[in-house]
């Protein structure tokens, strides 16, 4: 049986070798002649390969970037780098401006019958550490002062810059003048678009 298999393999070796040799020749020919024809691209009327195309793309990208930088330097009047850094700092600080209005809108939305419900006793913006401290209380809401405080905190979180508003301790206190009220004092890290 083994002898028979060996004789079959010995007979097939020469045709297999010939077939593989012809196959290699044909594939090599295709690779040298046909593949370049299929992978050629036309750049400004010249037929070039993919590598040249990518090189041209990278070269153009660099030239455009350089031209944009040069244009900015020519068109934008002030080029002082120290001034540029401080101006960007000011522009970052300007992002805080809409915050005050947004918080006031929430406070006003909580009013009941013209009476303040969410009061703000202190708004402290630290522009360097980028934090906002809010201190105040929820009053004129009877037993629901805690749920109004939870609503206030949720509403603050809906402002993108205040998305990281921490949860304050929810507690209801009694005061002879205010009645039932829920104080809060929170420090919120401000999220900014850099």
């Amino acid at each position, binding site marked *: 049986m083994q002898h028979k298999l060996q004789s079959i393999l010995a007979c097939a070796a020469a045709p297999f070798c010939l077939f593989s040799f012809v196959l290699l020749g044909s594939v090599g020919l295709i690779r040298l002649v046909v*593949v370049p024809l299929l992978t050629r*691209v036309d750049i400004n009327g010249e037929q070039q390969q993919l590598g040249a195309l990518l090189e041209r793309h990278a070269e153009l990208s660099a030239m455009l970037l350089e031209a944009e930088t040069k244009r900015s330097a020519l068109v934008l009047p002030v080029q002082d780098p*120290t001034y540029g850094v401080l101006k960007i700092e000011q522009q970052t600080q300007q992002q805080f401006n809409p915050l005050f209005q947004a918080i006031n809108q929430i406070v006003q939305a909580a009013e009941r019958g013209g009476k303040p419900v969410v*009061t703000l006793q*202190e708004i402290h913006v630290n522009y360097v550490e980028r934090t906002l401290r809010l201190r105040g209380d929820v009053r004129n809401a009877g037993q629901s002062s805690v749920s109004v405080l939870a609503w206030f905190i949720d509403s603050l979180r809906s402002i993108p810059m205040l998305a990281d508003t921490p949860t304050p301790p929810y507690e209801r206190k009694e005061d002879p003048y205010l009645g039932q009220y829920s104080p809060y004092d929170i420090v919120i890290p401000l999220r900014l678009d850099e």
Partner: protein
Amino acid sequence: MNKKFSPLALGLIGCLCFGLSLRLVYESVNQIVAVRQEGLPVLAELPVMERRQEVLKEQLELSELQAALRVGSPDELVHAYVLPTENPVERFVASLNLAADALQQAGVIGEISSIETSSEQPVKNGLVQIPIRFSVALNEQGTTALRQFMLLAGRLTVADALLPSEIEALFERVEADNPTGIVPLEQFLSANLLDYAHDAKAYEGSLNHAIPQPLFTSLLMQLSEESALRDVRDIFGGLGPELKQQRLWPLPLVTIQELVLRQGRAPGWWQATVTASIYRRTES
């Protein structure tokens, strides 16, 4: 052939040729796929990039010509007034009092306290900051106006009031709609901020006249209403002539460190305490 080569050698040569053929087929297929996947998108981008290159080249030539005609450099103004070598606190206090007077007349802020200054602190690159602190009673409009005034102090030109992304949007629009519009755009961006605040319509109208394409007009309108240019008109529109007359323009640059608002005595009013920094160069 069987007599000259052993079947084993023939089999090995056959296997080698077959393996090499498979590898060549694999590489060829990969090469064709790469051209389809990477090459074609890049090929589609090239004409657009080449067109941009031509446009930018034209804009650079025009800008270079315009720059050659420009008299004086705004950088000199920065060195003389915005980040000067002399202590700028007095000039800032004078301009703040001027703004406070106007806001008091509008009924949005009260009397401003005396302004305390602390000792200079080095920042970097030959720059020192001088901390200042003051208090004032104000309502919501007063808070907005005070912040606008302080955070626009030190800006010289229209370009300085715009964010880099807003300037980029203007460049892109001009490139697409009217490449030669770079000259009027440069004139608009270089306009003195105080002159713009005094007569914004004239500056915007003149730019619109030079670049009348609807998309550019709509972008300019959007920037005029939604960018810091609106704040510039609000705060410097009325103050401008007085600032110029008292030779307080350009203002020294200020950044705010802290703003504390405590509930005031009247409803809707706050007692604000502002801590800010003014800057001075240690070397000219």
